[in-house]
């Protein structure tokens, strides 16, 4: 048999290699996009009935379930130590996306992602780049900055306060944003900060009472399930004639809380459902990419929600203008608040 000339062999191999590349690329794309219902696992370290972070996460994932007709599995009370086994188990069962709800799941997710496989990993409330993991970096510092402006304009005593559940970076960022916003209005304003607990309403209530006793008349709280204690303290203070004392909500829209909605002018809100929905869609379409996803004012995930009942009475047009101006400055980068 007459052999092909060398030149022809090279051309043939090149064409074959090109075709192989094209087909493998197409096949790859085909494999990345998901057909059929998306399978999502949601893991959190606390209780999904905590009235705060975990509960909001659960509510958000249920929105994703409804909108994408996804199959969702929720697992609560998972410690970071157990998380590796749990995540690996979900990955082996063919789940498309695993969401670890909290910074504590970053390392476990990274470890399981490194094992390979088709499952995608997202961790909410983290700000670090890790291979194979998408971290959702919620920046509440920007809406907190706006709340600081509102607080400074609302305060009659020139004293405002912040109560956090724990001094973790995301909560400290809220305080920094709040303080920066308040000082942009009143440079001499006094701003107290205290950290109590996520789940002890009695402790957060007594801390809020200590604030009020010292003359603080606007409180920004980020204490999750313990927030009811702060609301209780504010309601009592207003009832006993200390007032007006105002309180801001955080993470979810707490303006309509049953205890003191008349004294809750605004909340700094994380729209977790938006963020989760976007990530789920990326997985579904095969466009998911690991890295850090900034979730902030710019993409509408972290925003200030005003209490519509108090607009015009407590929240004056001047305050609304100041908030809108601050929002524009934050969006255009004229003002930068370190998250």
């Amino acid at each position, binding site marked *: 048999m007459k052999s092909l000339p060398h030149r022809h062999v090279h051309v043939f191999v090149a064409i074959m290699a090109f075709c192989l590349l094209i087909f493998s690329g197409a096949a790859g794309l085909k494999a990345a996009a998901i057909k059929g219902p998306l399978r999502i696992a949601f893991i959190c370290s606390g209780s999904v*009935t905590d009235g705060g972070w975990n509960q909001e996460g659960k509510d958000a994932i249920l929105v994703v379930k409804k909108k994408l007709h996804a199959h969702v599995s929720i697992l609560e009370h998972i410690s970071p130590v157990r998380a590796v086994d749990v995540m690996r188990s979900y990955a082996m069962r063919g789940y498309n996306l695993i969401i670890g709800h909290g910074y504590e799941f970053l390392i476990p997710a990274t470890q399981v992602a490194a094992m390979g496989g088709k499952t995608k990993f997202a961790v909410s409330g983290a700000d670090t780049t890790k291979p194979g993991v998408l971290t959702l970096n919620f920046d509440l510092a920007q809406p907190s900055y706006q709340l600081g402006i509102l607080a400074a304009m609302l305060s009659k005593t020139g004293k405002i306060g912040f109560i956090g559940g724990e001094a973790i970076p995301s909560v400290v960022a809220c305080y920094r944003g709040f303080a920066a916003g308040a000082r942009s209005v009143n440079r001499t304003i*006094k701003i107290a*900060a205290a950290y109590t607990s996520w789940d002890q309403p*009695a402790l957060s209530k007594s801390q809020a009472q200590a604030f009020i006793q*010292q003359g603080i008349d606007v409180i920004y709280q980020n204490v999750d399930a313990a927030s009811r204690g702060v609301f*209780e303290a504010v309601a009592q203070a207003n009832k006993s004639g200390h007032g007006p004392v105002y309180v801001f909500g955080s993470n979810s829209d707490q303006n309509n809380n049953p205890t003191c909605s008349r004294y809750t002018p605004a909340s700094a809100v994380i729209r977790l459902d938006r963020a989760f929905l976007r990530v789920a869609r990326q997985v579904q379409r095969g466009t998911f990419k690991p890295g850090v996803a900034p979730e902030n004012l710019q993409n509408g995930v972290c925003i200030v929600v005003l209490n519509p009942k108090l607009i015009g009475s407590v929240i004056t047009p001047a305050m609304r203008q100041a908030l809108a101006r601050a929002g524009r400055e934050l969006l255009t980068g004229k003002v930068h608040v370190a998250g």
Partner: protein
Amino acid sequence: MTPAQNMFTFLSRQAVTAATPMILAGVGELVGELSGVINIGIEGTMLMGCIAAYTVTGVSGHGTVGLLAAMAAGMVMAVIFAAASVWGRADQIVAGTAMDLLGVGLSGMIWMMYQNWRENLGFSTALPRGSGFSAVPIPVLHDIAYLGPVLFDQYALCYVTIGLCVVMWWVLRRTRLGLIIRALGDAPEACHAAGVRVRLGRSLCLLFAGACSGAAGAYLSIMQTHAFASDMTGGEGFVVLALVIFGRWKLPGLIGGCLFFGLINSLQQTLQTARYASQNTALHALTHVPFQFFQMLPYLAAIIALAIMSRKAPGPRYINVPWPEVKT
């Protein structure tokens, strides 16, 4: 009043408010320990009291019904604990740990079911307006300078606790019943010889302790805050255990310990605030102190006091010893 007097009154009032549930649970634990049974699961019992009070008040719209439900829940927990440790002769520490875990888990589960149920019915999970307890100032008395706001502008259960302390002090010191309770823990053989049924006596003491812990939980959820959160007791049950030892198994010591703990906690919260909000330069200098230092203060004070006070403080001789003893 001067600002300093104002501050002192505020701190004292906060201390009494914070100490009330600890005193209430502590009185029950003291009686239980004097009878020879240590229940380290009071944290779990308090949590069951919290959730029982909150859910029953939420459904019935009456705080008093919620309070009774909390006491009943505490007594149910006590029955389980007594069955295991008194009648089943299980190790009290192990059984108490199990009770703690049971209370934490069960209260969280009930809370989840309650939320789902209310939401499915279209009702709020918040307490109906006016159903939770508010502070009840006692006319005339609450106008007394300093003492008035501190002692006579509290929740109803605080007054009940004061009354209970007086009664229990009298019972434990002056009555035959008190003598029997102490003898159950110090000389169960003597009780047995005198015809007292030791296991029944210990079980009744535990029932009383359960009711007290349940009521303490109700204080947290339907009086002090009108809220429930998983693990909302935040370790108070364990602090109570330490304070019973701190008080050398005596009621005045226990009350003093609880008030001291409440005062230090109130002081640290005020200091955390005052360093920013006050004009006082000395206080302002404290802004450089990490907040964790202030948070540590009550526990540090408790440990130091415990180390000093618990020396030469023998507890009941037969604590954690099941009856009848098995001689080997």
